[in-house]
C-alpha cells in the first residue's frame, strides 16, 4: 500500500583526508515523517547535501532513487525541480526584502521580466494561510521572529510544489511554543501527503512526530527503527555506541584551589534583544584542572565563552567573575588578557588568525609587549619566541615565515594555541580545539592541554565530541539552551549520561 519515495543506496562521500559518509543507506516511504538522528559531525547534513545536489552527482559514490528513477542531480535546481526541497539550519532569506519577495525570489511571476506583484501577493497570502502564518505579505523578513521566518521558508518550499520536504534542525533556534507549532504543521502536511525528512537531535520531538528513525554515527547507518521500536534509550545507545580507546594521552591531575569562578552569568542576543541566550550560569575551574562543557550545537557554549572573554558576544551581559577569590573587571578583551584569561576560538579562520600574515607575527600578536621595549619590537627576540613555540606545539611549516593561510587546519590551530600560550594566561578557554583536524593532530593538541594543566593552568574545554571530553577532562558541565543542566566528574560520566542530561534538560527548559 505504501510505496518508497526515496532510496539512497551505499552513499559514500570522501573529503580530502576524511571519509564523511561510508555506505549509508536511507529508505523513505511516501507520506511518512522520517527522522534522521546522530551526533554533531555524524554526517547527517552531508547526507542531505548529497541528496539535494549541493554535492553534485559524481563527487560521491552510490545511488539515489527517487520515485523509482535513478537521479543524478547537478545542483539544487535539479532536485527542487523534482519537488525535493531542503530547509537549512541557517535560513536563506534576504532580511531587507518582504515575505512575498523572498518566497518568489528567483521564481517571480513575471511577463517579459516585469513582475506582477498583485499575483505574487495573492499567492503568498494563500501559502501563508497554509502554514498558519498571519502576517502581511509586504512585511520585511527582518521584522518577524525566527519562528515565523522558519514558516516563511516552509511556505517558500510549498510554492515550489514540494513532494519531499527536508528540514535540517528546524527547531534549533525556536522557542518551545514555536517548535510545537512547527511539529503540528509537519503532521498536517503528512495528512496532505507530503513526505518529510526531519533532522534533529531533540529526541522528544522525534518521539512525537516521527514514523521511522534512522540513526547515523561516524558516517554510517547504524539502524532504522519503526514507530513501535522508537525509545529514547534505544536511540541514545545507538547514537553514541562506540568505545573509548587510547586516543588520549595519559595524565595525572593535580588539582588545586579555585582559580576562576563565574556567578549568575546572563547574556542577551545582540540582534534580538528580547532573547536571553545565557540564563544565569555558575561555573568554576581549579588550578591544574581541565573542565569540559558538553552540549549540542546551539546550546550557547560559544556564546557563554565569548561573552565572558571581554564581552565579545551579546548585550546586557550581567554576572560576577572572581579570579583567585577577587572580583575582576573583564569588560574588554584587553582587560581579560591582562587578567590572564585567554580564549581560543572555535572558528580560527574568522576569529583566530591573520591569514595573510606569517606564523611569527600571529604568535606574538596577543603579547607584543613581551617581545618589545618602549613599543619597539625586538626582531630577534620575536623570531626566537616564534621558533620556540613552533617547536613546543610542533607546528609543521617550512619556517615561521610561512603564511598561516597556507597551513593545514591542525597547524593553524597550533598557531592560535601558541599565540595564547605566549600570552601566558592563568585560565585558558578552548572552544572546539580539535574541530576539523585529523586524528594525529588531535592527539598533539590533547598532549598540549595535558601539559598545560600539569603546569598549573586552569583549562575550560568546550567540545561537541563527547569522547574527547570524557578522555581529557576532569569534570564536565552539561549545557543546554543557555543553562547548565548537569555537572559530573569525568570518571563518573559516560556519553549516555551526558546525552540523558541534555535530553532531560530539553523538557525542563522553556
Amino acid at each position, binding site marked *: 500500500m505504501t510505496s518508497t519515495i526515496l532510496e539512497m543506496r551505499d552513499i559514500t562521500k570522501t573529503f580530502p583526508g576524511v571519509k564523511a559518509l561510508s555506505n549509508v543507506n536511507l529508505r523513505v516511504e511516501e507520506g511518512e515523517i522520517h527522522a534522521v538522528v546522530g551526533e554533531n559531525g555524524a554526517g547527517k547534513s552531508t547526507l542531505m547535501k548529497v541528496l539535494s545536489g549541493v554535492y553534485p552527482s559524481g563527487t560521491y559514490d552510490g545511488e539515489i532513487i527517487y520515485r523509482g528513477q535513478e537521479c543524478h542531480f547537478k545542483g539544487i535546481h535539479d532536485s527542487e525541480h523534482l519537488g525535493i526541497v531542503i530547509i537549512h539550519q541557517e535560513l536563506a532569506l534576504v532580511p531587507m526584502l518582504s515575505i512575498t519577495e523572498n518566497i518568489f525570489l528567483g521564481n517571480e511571476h513575471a511577463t517579459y521580466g516585469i513582475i506582477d506583484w498583485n499575483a505574487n501577493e495573492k499567492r503568498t497570502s494563500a501559502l501563508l494561510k497554509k502554514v498558519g502564518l498571519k502576517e502581511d505579505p509586504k512585511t520585511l523578513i527582518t521584522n518577524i521572529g525566527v519562528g515565523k521566518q522558519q514558516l516563511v521558508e516552509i511556505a517558500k518550499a510549498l510554492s515550489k510544489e514540494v513532494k519531499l520536504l527536508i528540514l535540517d534542525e528546524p527547531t534549533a533556534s525556536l522557542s518551545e511554543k514555536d517548535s510545537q507549532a512547527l511539529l503540528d504543521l509537519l503532521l498536517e502536511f503528512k495528512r496532505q501527503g507530503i513526505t518529510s525528512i526531519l533532522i534533529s537531535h531533540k529526541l522528544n520531538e522525534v518521539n512525537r512526530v516521527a514514523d521511522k528513525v534512522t540513526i547515523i554515527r561516524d558516517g554510517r547507518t547504524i539502524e532504522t527503527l519503526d514507530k513501535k521500536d522508537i525509545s529514547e534509550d534505544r536511540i541514545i545507545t545507538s547514537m553514541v555506541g562506540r568505545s573509548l580507546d587510547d586516543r588520549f594521552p595519559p595524565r595525572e591531575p593535580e588539582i588545586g584551589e579555585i582559580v576562576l569562578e563565574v556567578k549568575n552569568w546572563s547574556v542577551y542576543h545582540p540582534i534580538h534583544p528580547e532573547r536571553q541566550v545565557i540564563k544565569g550560569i555558575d561555573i568554576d575551574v581549579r588550578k591544574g584542572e581541565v573542565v569540559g562543557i558538553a552540549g549540542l550545537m546551539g546550546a550557547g557554549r560559544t556564546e557563554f565563552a565569548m561573552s565572558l572573554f571581554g564581552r565579545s558576544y551579546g548585550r546586557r551581559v550581567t554576572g560576577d567573575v572572581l579570579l583567585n577569590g577577587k572580583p575582576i573587571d573583564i569588560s574588554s*578583551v584587553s582587560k581579560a588578557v591582562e587578567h590572564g584569561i585567554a580564549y581560543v576560538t572555535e572558528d580560527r579562520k574568522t576569529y583566530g588568525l*591573520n591569514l595573510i600574515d606569517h606564523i611569527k607575527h600571529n604568535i606574538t*600578536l596577543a603579547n607584543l609587549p613581551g617581545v618589545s621595549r618602549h613599543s*619597539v*619590537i625586538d*626582531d*630577534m627576540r620575536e623570531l626566537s619566541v616564534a621558533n620556540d613555540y613552533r617547536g613546543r606545539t610542533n607546528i609543521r611549516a617550512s619556517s615561521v615565515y610561512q603564511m598561516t593561510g597556507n597551513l593545514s587546519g591542525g597547524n593553524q590551530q597550533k598557531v592560535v594555541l601558541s599565540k595564547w600560550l605566549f600570552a601566558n594566561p592563568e585560565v585558558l578557554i578552548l572552544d572546539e580545539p580539535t574541530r576539523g583536524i585529523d586524528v594525529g593532530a588531535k592527539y598533539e593538541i590533547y598532549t598540549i592541554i595535558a601539559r598545560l594543566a600539569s603546569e598549573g593552568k586552569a583549562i575550560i574545554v568546550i567540545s561537541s565530541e563527547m569522547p574527547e571530553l570524557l578522555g581529557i577532562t576532569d569534570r564536565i558541565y552539561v549545557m543546554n539552551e543557555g543553562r547548565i543542566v548537569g555537572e559530573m566528574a569525568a570518571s563518573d560520566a559516560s556519553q549516555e549520561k551526558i546525552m540523558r542530561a541534555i535530553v532531560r534538560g530539553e523538557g525542563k527548559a522553556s
Partner: protein
Amino acid sequence: MSTDSAPAPQSGVAEDLQQGPRVAVSALVTNLREYGLVLALIAIMLFFQFTTSGTLFKPLNLSNLVQQNSFIIVMALGMLLVIVSGHIDLSVGSVAGFIGALAANMMVTWHLGPLSNPLVVSIICLVIGGCIGAAQGYWIAYHRIPSFIVTLAGMLIFRGMCQALLGGGSSVGPLPDVFNKLSSGFIPDVIGTLTLIAPTVNAAGKTIVGSGLTLHMTTVVIGIVGVLAYAYFGLTARRNRERHGYEAEPFTLFAVKTMVVSALMLFLVYQFATYKGMPVVLLVMAVLIALFVFVTKRMTIGRRIYAMGGNAKAALLSGIKTDRLTLMVFVNMGVLSALGGLIIAARLGQAVPAAGLGSELDVIAAVFIGGASAMGGVGQVIGSVVGGFIMGVMNNGMSIMGVNVDWQQVVKGLVLLGAVIFDVYNKNKA
C-alpha cells in the same frame, strides 16, 4: 653534456661558481614585487631621460620634481596606514586645501599678532589637521560608518570651507618668504661650497651663471651620511640574522641592491649639490619616510595596524583596541594632510581655492601602485613612496615632452591598472 669529459672536481667548482648568481636570480624572482617597483622607477626615469634629451636629470628639474610631488608623498605615508587598516580617505585633498587657506589667512589677512608667526601658524595648522582626522575617525571607528562615506562628506565640507575662507574665487597671498622656504627653499650651506672648476669670469668681471662646477658641501655630507647609514643598518640587520642562525637573502643580491640604491642616492645628491643644494622639503620628506618605515616595521603600533587590516575580528580578540587604533590612523592622516596643505601653499606662495584639488586620487593611486591591497593588511611605506615618485616622474616627464594633459591622465590610469593587475597576477601565481 660537454662537461662529461671534464674531471669531477672541476665540474663541482664550476657548479659552485654558478650557484651564487643562480640563487640570487631565484631570490630576485621571489621578491619581484619589491625590487620590480624600484626597477620600474629606474626604467621610467631612464626612458624620460632619453625622450626629454637629458632634461629630466638636470638639477633644476630634479628640484622641481621633488617640490611638485613632495606633498603627494607626504600624504601617501598617512594614506598607506589608512589603506592597510582597511579604510580609505577621500578628504585629504580638501583638507590640504582648507589648511592652506587657513594658514594664509592667519599669516596675511587676520593680523593675529604673535599668532601670525609662520612657525606658530604651522604648528596650529598641524594640530587642527589632527582634530579634523579625529572628527572623521570618530564616526568611522566608534560608529562603524564606512570610511568611504565619512571622508566623502569630509571632502565636500573642507573644499567648501577652503573656498569660503578665501572669499569665493580669490586667492590669499603673498605668503611670508620664510614660510615659502618650506617648499621652495634649499638647506643653508653651513660647511661652505667646494669649487671643483672655477666659474668663467667675463670681461666685466662677473661670473657667468651656470659655468664652472661648485658643490654644496652640506648637501654632499648629508647625502654621504645617509648612504652610509643605509648600508650600515642593512649590514647589521643582516649580520644579526646570520648570528642567530637565520637565513638572510643571498649576499650577492644584498650587495647589488645596496650598491644600486646607494649609487642612485649619491647621484641625486650630487645633482642637487651642483645646483642650490638639497631642497628643504626633501629633507622633511626623508625624515618622515624614515620615521614611517620604523613605525610600520619595528613598532608595536605598526604591527597592530597590519593585524587589524588583515583580520579585524582576530585582532580585537587578541586584545587590540581596534576602535582607538582606527581613530589614531585617521588622526595621523589628518596631520599629514595638513602638512601637505602647508607644502602646497608654500610652493605657490599663496593659498588658492583649487589647492590640492583631486590630489586624494593621486595619493591613493601612489599607495596602490606601491603594492597595497584594497582589502587591507598589506602594503609598504617604501612601496608607496616609490609609487608616488613613479606618478611624479611620469607627470614631469610627459610635461617636458609636451604630452597633452588629457593624455597624461590616460597614461597614468593605465599604469595604475597595470600595476594592480601585475599584483593580482603575482598573488594568484603564488
